[in-house]
């Protein structure tokens, strides 16, 4: 199990948070977990849409009080139970 990775995309406007996340995800193995921090309101819709298009799994979407949304993604499909 690799260490969780965080991508800081705060202050970036769409589509840059998704692009920054995809760049980091490219170099990680399936099963790795990446969390992206974003302030752009489109990220909460576009990160899940990107994950669906790329076959990744959304683990959590959390809104903090300071307007930052943290979205955690597990790369690759959900393991079959």
């Amino acid at each position, binding site marked *: 199990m690799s260490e969780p990775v965080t991508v800081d995309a705060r202050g970036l406007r*769409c*589509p840059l948070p*998704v*692009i920054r996340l*995809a760049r980091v995800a490219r170099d990680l193995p399936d099963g790795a977990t990446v969390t992206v921090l974003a302030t752009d309101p489109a990220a909460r*819709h576009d990160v899940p*849409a*990107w994950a669906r298009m790329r076959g990744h799994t959304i683990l959590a979407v959390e809104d903090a009080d300071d307007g930052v949304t943290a979205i955690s993604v597990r790369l690759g499909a959900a393991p079959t139970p």
Partner: protein
Amino acid sequence: MKIKLSLIPLSSPPLLGLLTSSFVSFPHHTTSTPFFWADPRRLHSEGRRARLLLEGAREAIAGAVGARTEEVDLFGSPTLALHAAVRGVARGRRRAGRDVVVSAVERGAVLEAATFAAAQPWGAPGRRVDVPVDRLGRVDLDAWAAAVTAPGAAPAARQPANGEVGSTQPTAAAHELARRAGVPLLVDAGASLGHLPVGDAWDVLAADPGDWGAPGGLGGLVTRAGVRRAPDWPEDEDRWSPGGVFVPAALAAAVALQDALRTRAEADARRRELVRLIRDRVAAQTPDVEVVGDAEDRLPHVVTFSCLYVDGEALVGELDRLGFAVGSGSACASSALEPSHVLAAMGVLTHGNVRLALPRDVRADEVERFCDVLPDAVARVREMLGVQGL
């Protein structure tokens, strides 16, 4: 001179000729002001004639939707009509309930009016109840049934078809559910009237003449007799639409509607085929694109797709440079900070969005040319962002 192809309706040049002739065919008065610009509320002969023309316009709209002339009210814009519909019916129904049920993909004017009406101090505060949609933009009928039968539901609102993504809705089923619960249904036919049959599954129907090819500056509302409504605005001679409307705008809307209905079957078949062509070619020839909305059950003229890793503003600009005027629901392509609530509610990509609404007179060769240039245009925008291989 290069003529730009508009893939969103900007104006309708052939219509202008039609309207001019319709104006000119009426007997002109000798004063410097043509009579149809007179205030229809005045009792002088010019005013009375303007009143007659206004009545004629209402009659034409009533005829197009199977209603009576007195059920039609006209407003200065579609937004004002939608506001008046939600506010008036919510207040009229205040003793039955305070909640306003809306589908999550209604136009912003409906959503905002619902929030506003539910918060008015006419008793216990209500709330706006959003009914979710699926990936294709279709309202979840079970959730709709639960929302309209819940205690406290006053009016409910949903479109027959969404103007942003084109998907149509099971309107008859939704109306039946609302009817059984005694909840009046507002149907925003703004994107449908003139393009699709609107049927009779509604209690209040909103119309957008700009969408059927009329000049802007008008909105329509048809309220079935028996729907209880009460204004939450000051009294006026025009009770439902304070201040009334500009008579030539109403006349133009009626003429344009009759023209749209007369040519609908032909325009429908032609544009459906072009929409299918665009959807197929975009999906096949541009990588990482989501073509949005139902493939078959849709408006005949609307196409929407979203391109992964693409800045919507840059793509609109690139297509503009190539001679195509297109719309977009991406936040990065408008002054809004939020992306399209319709795309968001559907759970599809909101960035890199392109929206086309094919005008009636769109040419097939121009549509083909759009499809030819799109893949490279998207590739260039992606290159600027350095996203190859992601």
